[in-house]
């Protein structure tokens, strides 16, 4: 900048800062009122010094405001992230919730239907999500026949979802028969836990959303 333009800029900048200072002072009421602007006076020996110290005050206040804004922003971002991650987890949990079956049966119980009902809108709202349904049985009966029964249980859940609009191509069905129990033991409590379909997001689902209602 040339010396001449600089001398023009400085007072312009000063006025701008003054205005900004006054405006920001108006917005943030609790703050102590800034020192009253000096009367537009003819320059005296003291006014330059006063102007400089006011300038410094103003800059300090700006910095403080900027720090406050930055802090508020980071708090807000953290809150958003937390609620988003909690939200993601909640959606994922609903999609992967397990359903259980009665002994030797592959038809859906009422509680299983309710669990599947909750999955449907989430699957429709997240078309990138592909699902793998894995059927399991308890340890009783023929190991090999139980592979077929597990497959039948997975197919049963898939049919329920596809009948409610989830495209077939997004759901894969597999069976583990009795080979992957979640509960060890030879009693009804263990057996009941093992007679199940598990649901796994096989692809997609990096950013799950809820349906816009």
């Amino acid at each position, binding site marked *: 900048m040339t010396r001449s333009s600089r001398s023009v800029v400085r007072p312009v900048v000063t006025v701008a800062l003054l205005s900004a200072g006054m405006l920001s002072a108006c917005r943030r009421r609790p703050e102590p009122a800034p020192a009253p602007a000096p009367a537009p006076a003819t320059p005296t020996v003291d006014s330059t010094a006063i102007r400089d110290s006011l300038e410094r005050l103003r800059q300090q206040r700006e910095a403080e405001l900027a720090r406050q804004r930055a802090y508020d922003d980071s708090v807000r971002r953290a809150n958003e992230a937390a609620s988003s991650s909690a939200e993601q987890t909640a959606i994922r949990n609903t999609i992967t919730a397990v359903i259980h079956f009665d002994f030797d049966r592959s038809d859906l119980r009422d509680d299983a239907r309710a669990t599947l009902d909750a999955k449907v809108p989430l699957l429709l709202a997240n078309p990138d999500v592909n699902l793998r349904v894995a059927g399991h049985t308890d340890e009783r009966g*023929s*190991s*090999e*026949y139980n592979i*077929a029964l597990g497959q039948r249980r997975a197919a049963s859940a898939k049919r329920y979802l596809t009948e409610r609009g989830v495209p077939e191509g997004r759901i894969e069905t*597999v*069976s*583990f028969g009795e080979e*992957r129990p979640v509960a060890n033991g030879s009693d009804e409590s263990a057996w009941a836990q093992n007679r199940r379909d598990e649901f796994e997001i096989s692809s997609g689902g990096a950013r799950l959303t809820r349906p816009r209602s």
Partner: protein
Amino acid sequence: MPRLSIPTMRSSFHAAALAALLLAGVASAQDTTRRGVTIGLSYDPASRPGVVVLPVAGALGDSVRAIFQRDLDYSDRFTIVPIDASNPSTFRGTTPGAELNYPLFARLGAAAVVQLTVSGGSLHVALHDVAKAGVANVEDFALPAPPLSRDWRRAIHGAADEMERWVTGQKGIAQSRIAFVDGPRLRVIDSDGAEDAVTTIGGQALSPAWNSAGTMLAYSTFGSASRIVVYDLRTNRSRVLRNATPTNTNLTPIFASDGASIVYAHADDNGSDLFMIGIDDNMPARRISVGRGTDNVQPTFSPDGRRLAFTSGRSGHPEVYIMDADGTNAELLTSFDFGDRNYRSDPDWSPDGRLIAFQSQFADGRFQIMTISLRDRSTKLLTSEGSNEQPSWAPDGRHLAFASTRSGVRQLWVLDSESGRLRQLTRLPGANLPAWSPRLGTSATTNAAARP
């Protein structure tokens, strides 16, 4: 020990005559007047000729004797006569030139004495007829090195099996192996339970099945990417059958008798059906059973390849059915009469075609092994202790391997369906889904990977 110069007897007539004479020896050791007894028809499976296996000289002698004698014992066709092996005078003749103390053996109840000699790379087997007081037959069997290896043991099993044929007319089954599932892996052990190295084939594998040459195993994998896989024991290599319906779940494969195709079950969103696929895997699989949404699994061929037995849920609960190999003429074989609960499954067709073994559930929820005759549909209950499942016939159509909880943990056991004798085959944390191989010739398959 000099070889006795008795001419070998090769014809089955002579072998049967020998059998009759040995029987005569058991019945009445001093009766020397029985001659020319008609044979062939008269080997009584319920009789078990007494056999002595003499101690074997040399560093490997004890091992050879133990393996050979155990094979005869496990055949359930002989009674092993114990002798005091540490005192040779108890079984050697005292007069010069008298090799064996035949009268002593006769008094002990032995009809036959087996004399084994290991020299060079061969096992010399001499079978003595106690009643005739002389050698009835001799043969040499090649013994591959190294000693105590699986091939070495297999050769001894082959010798014992052949000796059995001299006496009973039927070759033994010692030279066979049993594949099974242990946790997630497939394993193969010898029929006497021995294994030197674990032949681990695949993970997440189920349902091993042998081809009739004993050179390959088919098995299935479960979970995602469920496949039918063929494993070659000669090369230790596996091959996935990619044309076997690559979606959903494939299970329970078996070989057709010509080894050129495999029948397996495919389960998808509409129940499960049986399919056939060529082993060269260059054509799509062909559906055989028409289950119409029901489950149809666990095929087993009749020995002539013309029919299949399988498990079907088409009546509402699992039962065993049979049908023609092209899928026609399906009929129910088992019914609720054979147990108190509606569950019968895991059929295995016997090698002689007469019987189908299966498991049937009873009121307390336990399963038992049963057989049903194809001729008159009569049934027989073979087990009662613990829960017993997954029968697999030995090549003699008489012994069965199966999984049992009778010892507390599920293990494999072997049952002689004629005498009821049982022996425990595995001692593992758990074993499942046994498949008994056909008789394996000495000249066949060596598993390169398992050589120590």
